[in-house]
């Protein structure tokens, strides 16, 4: 028994993280392909659609009726439907692009060897990848009832974080790659993480000082409240400042920096989704729900036994 409001849980946060990372990696790979930059490791091309599919699976498991998950495709006006279609497209196109790199598959399906098809898929992947990277931000930003999320800032922060985790995935793979020269985005990653380290405190500062009281209260939870230790240590410290320091002090440890970025990205998604529990409360509401039983009270257990 749980009388308190049900909100999104860790599975949605994991979906945002995995799908955002995979989609951003696909978008970066597409940019590299379109502009003739050194290739992205094949492992990334294979892993990216798998990661998005894993995220989508978690999204389905979060549903009350997982076997009717197909219904999320039905309302084109809903952001979630838009995201679901784009995630599906990203998985299909990502798998198609990865298949182009396997000679055995190319021998069976000669069309995959066509340069025109590969270029078209790359362009589509760039668009779809960026949409999937940023759509969670759009979804959250439109929810006016959740003070920390509402406003366009969340879109930028989600896109940035997705790109960071996508590049970190590529860098992590590059670090262990023994094949021909591959795309090295070490300095791009460094720059983006530095921007993130500036943008998040600014976002919280604006929420804290320049908007409504409900948004200020939500920001305070992150600045010095219950979320603060995880944010400042996990996201700002370990996920942003430390990777920059590692890249500068020990450039040979780029895998460590990339791993830290991934940890920071995952922590950030979890904290952002968790902060959805904070609604714009109505007078007396929190006190009312605080008085309701949780289900583990002695009198309820005794009642259930009867």
């Amino acid at each position, binding site marked *: *028994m*749980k*009388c308190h*409001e*049900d*909100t*999104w849980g860790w599975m949605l946060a994991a979906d945002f993280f995995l799908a955002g990372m995979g989609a951003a990696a696909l978008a970066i790979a597409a940019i590299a392909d379109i502009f003739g930059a050194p290739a992205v490791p094949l492992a990334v091309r294979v892993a990216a659609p798998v990661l998005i599919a894993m995220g989508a699976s978690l999204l389905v498991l*979060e*549903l*009350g*009726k*997982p076997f*009717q*998950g197909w*219904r*999320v*495709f*039905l*309302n084109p*006006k*809903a*952001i*979630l*439907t838009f995201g*679901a279609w784009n995630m599906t497209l990203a998985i299909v196109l990502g798998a198609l692009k990865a298949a182009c790199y396997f000679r055995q598959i190319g021998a069976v399906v000669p069309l995959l060897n066509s340069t025109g098809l590969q270029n078209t898929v790359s362009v589509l992947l760039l668009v779809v990848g960026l949409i999937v990277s940023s759509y969670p931000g759009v*979804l959250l930003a*439109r*929810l*006016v*009832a*959740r003070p920390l999320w509402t406003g366009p800032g969340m879109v930028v922060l989600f896109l940035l974080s997705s790109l960071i985790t996508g590049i970190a995935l590529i860098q992590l793979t590059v670090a262990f790659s023994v094949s021909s020269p591959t795309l090295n985005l070490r300095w791009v990653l460094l720059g983006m993480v530095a921007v993130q380290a500036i943008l998040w405190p600014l976002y919280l500062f604006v929420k804290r000082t320049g908007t*409504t009281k409900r948004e200020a209260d939500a920001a305070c939870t992150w600045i010095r409240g219950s979320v603060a230790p995880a944010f400042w240590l996990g996201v700002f410290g370990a996920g942003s400042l430390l990777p920059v320091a590692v890249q500068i002090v020990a450039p040979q440890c780029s895998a460590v920096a990339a791993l830290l970025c991934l940890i920071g990205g995952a922590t950030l998604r979890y904290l952002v989704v968790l902060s*959805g529990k904070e*609604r*714009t409360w*109505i*007078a*007396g*509401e929190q*006190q*009312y*729900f605080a008085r309701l039983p949780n*289900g583990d009270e002695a009198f309820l257990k005794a009642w259930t036994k009867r």
Partner: protein
Amino acid sequence: MARYAMVIDTRRCIGCHSCTVACRTHNHLPVEMIYNPVMTIGPTGKFPSLHLSHLPLLCMHCANPPCVDGCPTRASQQREDGVVFIDQNKCISCKTCIMSCPYGARKANHETGTVQKCDFCRDRLAEEKLPHCVATCHQKARIFGDLDDPTSEVYKLVNTEKVTRIHEELGTEAHVFYIVS
């Protein structure tokens, strides 16, 4: 076509929770689910000038319902008479509507795998009866009717009394109005 709305006169509400009980009983709600809780605000002030008030909540049946716009399955719908309801056959409990609602009016039912909410007792409206919470309120603190009908009590109250709506700044255009002292 009617446009249903409710006026809650908080000056009359004594916080007896009869509406909560009536709603839960007649709608056969699970034990953890409450459609219309009654908040208690206070006591505020200093003795002997103390003040205590009650604020009954429910789905606001907004004119711009964010829950309907965000529903990916089209389970959340709004009738022409303004009643917002959930088609239980289409709902998969993705919780987007719960997150969209500024009033906490929607609850997940873990047994059915759906989300539920107040629908102004639309089964009773079809029989031209009042919602349970309104019929039960012995203080006549809840007034229900057609906002488009100039002869209805809600129309008169909304247009003559000083009414307010919760979270008006969010632009949802809630159709539950409150008369506060």
